């Protein structure tokens, strides 16, 4: 029994780790200057960082109030609302992109309204941010709602009894106590946004310098210069690993 468990665990570790090591080993590191000089990779990486950071910021802005609403209020349809706002997390990403296109595209209900204001979203950097937020915000909402449910309201009552206003209580008690949930949720949200592919390509397209983030660039390079695709992939892997290490709970 013990031998079986150990063997299965070893197989699991091999399956999970070997592709990563393979990518690093197979990448033609000597071609790095060439890849960089070409301009495609640095632009894609830069855009990836910009889009993912913007997506995390947007997710925090809309996700924190939603998490608060879901954790701290009892109302009809709360369960339904929770299911709906976390659904994009489990949706196939390309379906998420198509859904965004249907709502915000030129013929969609929101798209027409925006067009009336002179705003066209699809195939812009903003669309890439929206696509990444759409699929990654639920991760943040889930983490924050979990954190809020774990947080005993007595702490807030104690703060109020000591004279703290609601804003002071939020800033000096609630947010610090939510820190682990906030950091964990943010890291997962960021990683998901950084890796976004399907929703982005469907809603924002694959335009160099505008919506072509690193995963999209890798996909394109794979068809022309697989060696450079490996290299860019390895760079993205290093980035994701960096996030992971920086955001791990201490």
């Amino acid at each position, binding site marked *: 029994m013990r031998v079986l468990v150990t063997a299965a665990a070893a197989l699991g570790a091999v399956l999970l780790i070997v592709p990563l090591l393979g990518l690093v080993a197979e990448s033609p590191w000597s071609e790095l200057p060439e890849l960089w000089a070409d301009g495609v990779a640095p632009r894609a990486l830069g855009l990836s960082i910009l889009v993912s950071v913007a997506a995390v910021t947007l997710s925090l802005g809309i996700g924190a109030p939603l998490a608060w609403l879901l954790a701290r209020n009892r109302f009809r349809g709360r369960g339904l609302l929770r299911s709906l706002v976390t659904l994009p997390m489990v949706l196939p990403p390309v379906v998420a992109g198509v859904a965004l296109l249907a709502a915000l595209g030129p013929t969609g209900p929101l798209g027409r309204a925006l067009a009336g204001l002179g705003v066209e979203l699809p195939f812009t950097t903003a669309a890439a941010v929206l696509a990444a937020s759409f699929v990654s915000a639920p991760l943040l909402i889930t983490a924050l709602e979990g954190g809020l449910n774990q947080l005993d309201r007595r702490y807030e009552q104690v703060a109020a009894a*000591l004279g*703290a206003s609601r804003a002071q209580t939020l800033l000096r008690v609630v947010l610090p*106590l939510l820190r682990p949930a906030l950091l964990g949720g943010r890291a997962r949200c960021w990683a998901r946004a950084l890796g976004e592919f399907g929703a982005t390509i469907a809603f924002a397209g694959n335009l160099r310098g505008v919506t072509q983030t690193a995963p999209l660039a890798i996909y394109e390079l794979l068809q022309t210069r697989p060696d450079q695709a490996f290299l860019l992939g390895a760079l993205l892997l290093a980035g994701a690993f960096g996030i992971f290490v920086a955001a791990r709970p201490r």
Partner: protein
Amino acid sequence: MEELAVSARARRGDFTLDVEFRVDADRTLVVLGPNGSGKSTLVDALVGLLPLEAGRVVYAGDCLEDPSEGLRVPPQRRPLGVMFQGSWLFPHLDVLDNVAFGPRARGLGRREARNRALAILDQLGLGDLARRRPKRLSGGEAQRVALARALATEPRVLLLDEPLSALDAETRSATRSFLQRQLAGFPGVRIAITHDPAEAAVLGERWLVLENGRITQQGTPGEVLRRPRSAYAAALAGVNLLRATPVRGPSGLRLVCGATSLGAPAVDLTEGIEHFVAFGAEALELRTRPDPADPGGWISGSVAEISVEGEFSSVTLSGDVPARARLRTAEIARSGFRAGESAFAKIDLNQAEAYPVVA
């Protein structure tokens, strides 16, 4: 007049709290009640976390809450310092910042707030703990820091909710005398809430007995223990409590409980008015059959429970007169008392207190 006058009706779920009391400055009121009696509900209502349905809370002439006027001062503006049950120190702040939290929230700058906190910690002999995180404090230390935190806002009313219940026996007695000293030095209104009579006896000179959301008795510890007015208060005092009515018969005044005569009262009592009769376990004589030398006046019942407690044991009688007697353990075996079998009792009314149920 620096007094706190409370008249409060509040509801939480299907539980209703309905109380009325006053406490003067420089006095300690101890609210004593079993679990579920509404002690925490009372704390939350006084702090302002649970709105009153009806009533009025006034401190030193200032109304803190009056639903009939739509008035409700929020918790952060009440002159209360609270030590909630289980210290609730903020885990992300060290001891100093926990204590400085109140003063800062009430408008002091960071440095001034910390100075005030340090002064209070020193005054309470806790200066050494200033830089510690709450999770590195012992239970007794955490309770002391929680008191320092409550005092740091310079409250006029100090509210302590079960300040010792989370502590083990050893820490408890040290923390109890610490609290006792600090309470004595606090000039405002003091309210301590507890379920433990030993703690209540140390903490305060006036008791309020709370049961099922209502006050069943108020008075000095001596009054409550000598003349309890509920089964709970009688249990606190460790005495038997019956209800009986003085009735005049051919042989003079007798105390009658249900259909059973308890005997002639030791003092003259008003006829026809229901009285509480409180008596210690020593005042109950118990036999397996009536004493042949003195056959009259025995109350029959059955043995509900025998609890061996060393040299002496207690025997609980059920029947018309439910009461507990205290016998030598050896005597129980010799006389042949057994749970479920019949027994006969006689109360020595000279050792009993009898007082009207309606005060």
